[in-house]
């Protein structure tokens, strides 16, 4: 049994991307909602923010209680900064920077996303 800690997740920017992982077809992601994908030992939450016309990806692990749940959270926006609210205790994280918006937890790692030919790709540096 593996317990994946926070150290597994490091923010990847578009410039760092070495490999675009073909995650799943667009239809797997509800509009204005999220779903979780697996890449190697990582769980990544991907959000289809239809209202903004943007896709976001971040670690599925909530740094508060170390549960793999962020993909099941509600997304929304605060002062037009896209965010996800953890379903367990409503901790809000920016989907742009990963910053914890309503407290002082560690920021979550975010990943670049692109959509091509009906498929969603997540960028990784390894």
């Amino acid at each position: 049994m593996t317990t994946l800690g926070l150290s597994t997740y490091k923010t990847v920017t578009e410039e760092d991307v070495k490999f675009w992982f073909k995650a799943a077809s667009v239809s797997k992601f509800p509009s204005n909602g999220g779903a979780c994908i697996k890449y190697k030992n990582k769980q990544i939450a991907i959000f289809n923010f239809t209202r903004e016309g943007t896709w976001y990806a971040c670690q599925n692990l909530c740094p508060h209680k170390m549960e793999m749940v962020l993909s099941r959270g509600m997304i929304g926006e605060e002062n037009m900064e896209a965010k996800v609210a953890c379903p367990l205790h409503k901790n809000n994280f920016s989907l742009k920077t990963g910053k914890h918006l309503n407290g002082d937890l560690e920021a979550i790692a975010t990943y670049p996303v692109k959509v091509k030919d009906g498929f969603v790709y997540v960028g990784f540096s390894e």
Partner: protein
Amino acid sequence: MQTIIVVGNGMVGYKFCEKFVAQADTKKYKLIVFGEEPRVAYDRVHLSEFFEDGDAERLSLAPRSWYQENTIELYTNERVSEINRATKTISTSKNRTFSYDHLVLATGSVPFVPPIRGVEKKGVFVYRTIEDLEETLAYANTVKGGKAAILGGGLLGLEAAKAVMDMGLEPHVVEFAPKLMPRQLDSRSSKVLQVKLESMGINIHLSKATNQILGNGKITGMEFGEDDTLDVDMLVISAGIRPRDELGKSAGLDMGTRGGIVVNNKMETSDPNIVAIGEVALYNQMIYGLVAPGYEMAQVAVDQILGKEETKMAAEIDMSTKLKLIGVDVASFGTPFMPSDKGHSIIFENKTESLYKRINVSHDGKKLLGGILVGEADDYNMLLQMYQNEMPLPENPEALIIGGRGEGGVSFGSAMDLPDTAVVCSCEAVTKGAICCSVLEDGNENLKSVAQATKAATGCGGCKPMVSDLITESLKTLGKTVKVQICEHFEYSRQELFDIVKLRGVQDYDELLDTVGTGHGCEVCKPAVAAIFASIYNETANKQNTIQDTNDRYLANIQRNGTYSVVPRVAGGEITPKQLMAMGRIAQKYDLYTKITGGQRIDMFGAKLHELPLIWEELIKEGFETGQAYGKSLRTVKSCVGSTWCRYGMDESVSFAVEIENRYKGIRSPHKFKGGVSGCIRECAEARGKDFGFIAVEGGWNVYVGGNGGANPKHAILLAEKVDKETAIKYVDRFIMFYIKTALPLQRTAPWLEKLEGGITYLQNVVINDSLGIVEELDAEMQALVDSYKCEWKEAVETPEIRERYTHFVNSEETDDNIEFVSLREQKMPKEWA
């Protein structure tokens, strides 16, 4: 550049920093702070809340980043060990030396441990820091189910008793004095408090002097006198505080004979470059163990250092205090006990409801001198204001403590009647004038922005209701109405949104946001709007699943480790042996932890996301349907067996409960709601502890509404007496529908009813006498909801697109390998949080 060193990062030390950076030019001053605890300053006043959620971070007064942003150098885990006044330097436990221009001693206090024989034994703790609590908790886990004593029946001792009870031990409070809280309460109020606490399972032992702690190596009991012992497995000492003054002593500052660093009204010690504030400072030959005077000292020290010499500590310090002790309000203000030559007292006591109120009035009946409130202290703020501002008393001052209850108007005028100089927030010393000015002149329009601007209500929070009233009233004078806006995306209250959705027939969240809202929504407005759609169209959460709270979205209750629990409906708590066996078989197959709930049904825990549709498919095949345990909707209708079996029963409570639970099942509302039906006034179903309840009496059913258990237990109030079943149902139909349409999001029926102007009389007029002319509409709306019920789990398992949502990964068949269970009494539970 001047350097200011603050020794101590507790509440008062932090307050000094906060006030200092707010006022001082940070280019001229450098602030260095030392704290010996590993954590940044936290709220010790609410320490017992740490037990409720184990979340230490939530108690922090400011995150570490706050210190960085304000260029404060913060060294935690580093104790200042010595002051060298000649060189104006300090040294620390890590052997580092720093020099200062001003030194601020805010070292606080340590718990006083009386010199009792055996006090060093294992299992004896103090109650002061988060670390103390953690150690206590670790030990408590080894003696679970045992007894724990708390030495000291003061404020902190009673808080500790609650903490100990939460740890799963039987609490015994041992007090030397003949009464609880001897410094704040008179003996009658103390007795009222004692009876109340005893009814909650806290044992109280008064007039006990502890001679020794018994036990071989670890504590097994306490001995008071000859043959007078108490067996306990743990002891928490909370017998007062002693100032942590050793730094002052070794530096040769003037000290009090019983400890404490002597300060004058500028907070100056005998060395003009050193100030002392908080519980280490001896002012007027007193140590003040309350937050408010500590904060005031911090303000004086800041102003003195910045050269505003006119700010001085008041000669007399107000020790008024209000707190919620284990859910019981306790407050005292001014002179709580008063010799009869100074004035007379008016006392109201109601032992059955554990209420005690006392006010002390001057002989001429014109001034309020002080008082004590136990059991309910809603009027504390107003009374305190009247006392502090020497406001004239009404002709019959007893109305101040007995007039305000029930339907009659509150005896106080509005908070606006206070003089501008009245201090409304005593923690932060914010006046009524400052709060109103922040609204009228600076344009702040809600509690959050006023609190940010003035700091009011950011301390203990006790003044929040009054600050809200002042904001509302000030806005009214500007001709603005005050709206309880749902969130930044909708400038409407829930009730207004409800009407908009209904009138315009909006059926889609995005459409509503585009037409009457702004932005892209958030986790506050989405579920609120989802509930409105559900109440109007009775649509299930499956339709717009991404605007639902997680429990509604997946039709199950998310648990600590991200797994879910499954609760089928067992209407009225009536279940056949066959159904029991089916449930048992399914729980066993999926290895679920099972437990009987408080609502007379069975909860099955530990289901992984992908298992939910499989489990429900089997349950539905056995004839079960969803219990909506996850929803803001009807939960259960609890019943006693009633006249079908019980020899006292007046009517068939089970049949009624089954009928009514099936009537309201699936109806979504602003918050969850529960019902109860009892077959006689013995009330075994606890119907008066529910949002609605029926009790069978001679000649019909009594109908009660607006009760709940939980953190603020409330008994439901009588809506109608001795009515037949059909009438009873009709009244409750209308009550629920009226509540659904007008309540705030996440407001249960009890607080809704409390805020309803006119209270129960008004509600009776609406639902019985049709004073608003809306009962036909309410009846039709309720009937539509009842008629359109469907089991949303049946819908989910039968619809492939919905079933598909129940996968952990959308790109892999694997399941979440992060979930770990450990065994517990032949079942399983989630592994502890890392």
